[in-house]
């Protein structure tokens, strides 16, 4: 069956659609995709490792996959809920605001957007026409390009409403990424490493002489093909040989 590259390309582009209503969700999807790629690479590295017996691989590879699925699944479910909750809250709050307050905040946001374009490098650098861009911004966001709350346009109001919702979604994505990466991942990784080690010790009593493996990686057990205790010095020798994937 031949690949339909056009359809695949369209699907990828649709998934990356940066519509403000999807803000936060796109960050979540991209981060989760990175985590899936990293977990898959780690598991693949474990599956093809020459130093691990076929018997151990039968346990280690599914264990690695299960740890990855639990980690990414929990992160995704939790962050998705946070993004939705913050976006809904932003929607409700903006809908309940007085028109004068919206106009005031929209003016402030429009002013900041214009200043950013005038002084920023990253946003305008690629387009190389900051003067044209700034004048286009002024005329889009204010009637006759005169910066004043009285001249605020519908485009500027829409920019404020959309960006408030988008900012709430991004905050949810950031909070989820921090909790997922700094709290959930260490718990899942360290606890699963403990149980994996216990299971390995059952089959290989010699391992009881070694400290627990700090994270899922069967190559920990051997350095240059020889079993060595996992002290700091040997651990450093091990890390010279293998790098854990992190995307």
């Amino acid at each position, binding site marked *: 069956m031949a690949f339909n590259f056009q359809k695949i390309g369209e699907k990828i582009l649709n998934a990356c659609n940066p519509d403000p209503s999807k803000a936060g969700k*796109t960050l979540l999807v991209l981060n989760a995709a990175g985590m899936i790629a990293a977990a898959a690479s780690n598991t693949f590295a474990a599956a093809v490792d020459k130093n691990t017996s076929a018997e151990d691989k039968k346990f280690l590879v599914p264990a690695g996959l299960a740890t990855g699925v639990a980690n990414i699944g929990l992160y995704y479910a939790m962050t998705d809920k946070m993004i939705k909750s913050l976006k809904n809250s932003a929607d409700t709050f903006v809908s309940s605001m007085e028109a004068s307050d919206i106009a005031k905040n929209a003016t402030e946001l429009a002013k900041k957007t214009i200043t950013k374009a005038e002084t920023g490098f990253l946003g305008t650098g690629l387009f190389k026409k900051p003067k044209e861009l700034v004048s286009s911004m002024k005329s889009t966001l204010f009637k006759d390009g005169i910066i004043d709350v009285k001249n605020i346009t519908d485009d500027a109001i829409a920019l404020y409403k959309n960006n408030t919702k988008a900012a709430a979604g991004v905050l949810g994505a950031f909070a989820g990424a921090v909790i997922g990466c700094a709290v959930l991942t260490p718990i899942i990784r360290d606890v699963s490493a403990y149980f994996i080690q216990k299971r390995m010790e059952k089959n290989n009593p010699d391992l009881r002489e070694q400290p627990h493996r*700090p994270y899922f990686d069967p190559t920990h057990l051997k350095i240059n093909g020889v079993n060595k205790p996992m002290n*700091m010095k040997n651990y450093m020798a091990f890390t*010279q040989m293998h790098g854990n994937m992190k995307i």
Partner: protein
Amino acid sequence: MKINNIQQTKQNNKQNFRGNIANKATKFIAQHPAAIATLAGSSVIAQKIVMSGSEAVIGPVMDVGIGKTITKISGETDGRTNESSKTQAIRTFAQSTGGTIVGVIIRALCIGASTAMIAKIGAKAGSKAATKVSELINPDKLDKAKDAFKFQDKMSSWGKSVGGAIAIGVMLVTNFIIDAPFINWINKKVTGVVDKFSGNKQENQAKEVK
């Protein structure tokens, strides 16, 4: 009946707590255009900095804490889990700092390249495939010169998004050739500092005992 009421109240409190946090956060954002301007346009670069920065600070503390908890719960007497959790803490720090530096550079390059490419396709489609892509990324047919602001806003958003996706593919390769040796280098340096520090501490303790 009473137990049901208590459970209901607890559940309501929990929901109110979550609702309050979300409401307070969004109220703050909506009333501070500076916060909107900072957050709304954030790309995967900002996400990586926030995520790995917090991992570099919180992650090692979590590793050591989890090691202590496992040792306590399992009643382990030889302290092996404790010892490996300290090693893992250094590894977590090295991974998050090294991964952030390389990850941010790769993401920035991919986003820059994608934005430039997308802006070109969005402005003037050539081939049949490019026309299809142009229809998708620029459905309103915004003109690069006439609608400069809206056009750039749209194209840089697409660039951030598509560049972030491309970066994942690129990093599958750079992870082995750049990240792994770089992280090992940081790991070695930090381990040296920790070893030196703990060596000094042990010497001081020995002196105090004498």
